[in-house]
């Protein structure tokens, strides 16, 4: 399985631990990532100003993958939804396709149908498959207890995602976490949005949204929250200290990217999974994993 790896804006600069762990995991289980130099912003950040320009951005990236005959693997939820939406609209609407291709012709690009776009976590669940993933597990994470945060654009709008998960009651991320042997704990208001998209508009609302999630997941005794999106992670990890001081609360909850924990279960060296870059340190959890402890009955 070969994919063009789409990093988007945030990951190469602020989510290198996500990128590093995803690359290490892919290499270990035999997924090939190809880096295409031309990949730039997906279009999401300009959609509020001009949906049409965002569409041209997305089409430009898809065209670059199409030139190489590659499908796209994304790591960010927002990139996934914007690219998938453009792909769907452009393949269904000829008039729109011609309009977008007029713009693209000025930079010698052409959108063509046929490129598939999938999030890395969905690829692991759907294309690689749970059974095969289970066979790859070298180290049982049975002493650890996680909660999963999907992130809105991983699931919605549902018309983009071929029904691979249920957006009102999602289970796929829970399943790929559970495959590591770890326990997964459900929590109140699981679908709650991280608020990342309006952080720059109204920080207050955005941080309150993230706080609700941190309150709900820490109501249970978990070792970490698991995410698959850099925006969500920035809200829960990078902004956790800010939320703690603003609202006078204490969480000290590590927020890990899914490939970081899958990497542990694949027996990869911790040093190659970027834990150094998580803002809230995961040392306690890593120690617990080394020293052993009571296994959860799941």
């Amino acid at each position: 399985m070969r994919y063009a790896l789409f990093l988007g804006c945030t990951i190469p600069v602020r989510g290198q631990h996500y990128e590093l762990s995803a690359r290490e995991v892919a290499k270990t289980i035999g997924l090939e990532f190809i880096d295409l130099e031309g990949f730039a912003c997906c279009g999401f950040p300009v959609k509020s100003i001009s949906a049409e320009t965002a569409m041209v951005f997305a089409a430009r990236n898809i065209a670059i993958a199409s030139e190489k005959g590659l499908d796209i693997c994304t790591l960010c939820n927002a990139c996934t939804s914007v690219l998938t939406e453009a792909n769907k609209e452009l393949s269904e609407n000829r008039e729109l396709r011609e309009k977008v291709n007029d713009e693209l012709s000025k930079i010698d690009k052409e959108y063509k149908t046929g490129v598939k776009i999938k999030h890395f976590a969905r690829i692991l669940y759907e294309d690689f498959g749970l059974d095969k993933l289970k066979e790859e597990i070298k180290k049982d994470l049975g002493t650890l207890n996680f909660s999963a945060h999907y992130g809105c654009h991983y699931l919605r709008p549902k018309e983009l995602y071929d029904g691979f998960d249920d957006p009102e009651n999602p289970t796929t991320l829970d399943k790929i976490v559970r495959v590591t042997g770890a326990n997964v704990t459900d929590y109140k208001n699981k679908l709650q949005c991280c608020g990342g998209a309006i952080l720059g508009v109204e920080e207050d609302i955005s941080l309150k949204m993230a706080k609700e999630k941190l309150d709900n997941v820490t109501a249970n005794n978990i070792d970490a929250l698991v995410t698959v999106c850099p925006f969500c992670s920035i809200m829960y990890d990078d902004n956790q200290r800010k939320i703690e001081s603003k609202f006078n609360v204490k969480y000290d909850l590590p927020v890990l990217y899914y490939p970081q924990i899958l990497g542990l279960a694949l027996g990869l060296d911790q040093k190659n999974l970027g834990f150094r870059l998580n803002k809230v340190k995961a040392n306690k959890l890593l120690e617990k994993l080394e020293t052993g402890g009571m296994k959860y009955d799941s």
Partner: protein
Amino acid sequence: MEGIKIGGGVDMINTKDLDPNFKYEVVKEHGGTNIMRCFACGTCTAGCPVRAIDDRYNPRKIIRMVLLGMKERVLKSDFIWLCSTCYTCYDRCPQDVRLSDIMTALKNIAVREGYIHPSFKEQAKLVGTFGRLYEVEDFDNKKRGKMGLPPVKKTFDDVTKIIKDTKLGEMIK
């Protein structure tokens, strides 16, 4: 532009201030097509995570204001920028109004009318300059190299060109 205060401090709408054609303008905008399907059930507002925290943002009310023709008050408002694009309302709406897309359409119209939120203006400027939301400096690529990650491009001439060609450059000046 503000309505006359009546009993209980409720704003009365002055019909002279309304633009009955505003809804058709929204219908024509990309993503705005289904706005007139709304029968005001309130499913959107009930499930909205932003509304749960701040009642300035009320999707049902925004749709109603558009349908009534309160063009200037909607476009000038700060609330249209508060949608977190979680798509909860979009998926749950029994009338397939496609609310998240309507909010995008309203923001796009507002920008053309000269009302642009500074945060999005800043984002668009960064993307126009660097092809990404973040500037990649030599330091970043050095750090990436140390971690065994390949370098990433620092600027994209063709993305900058798209911004200019699609008039977005004018809008964010």
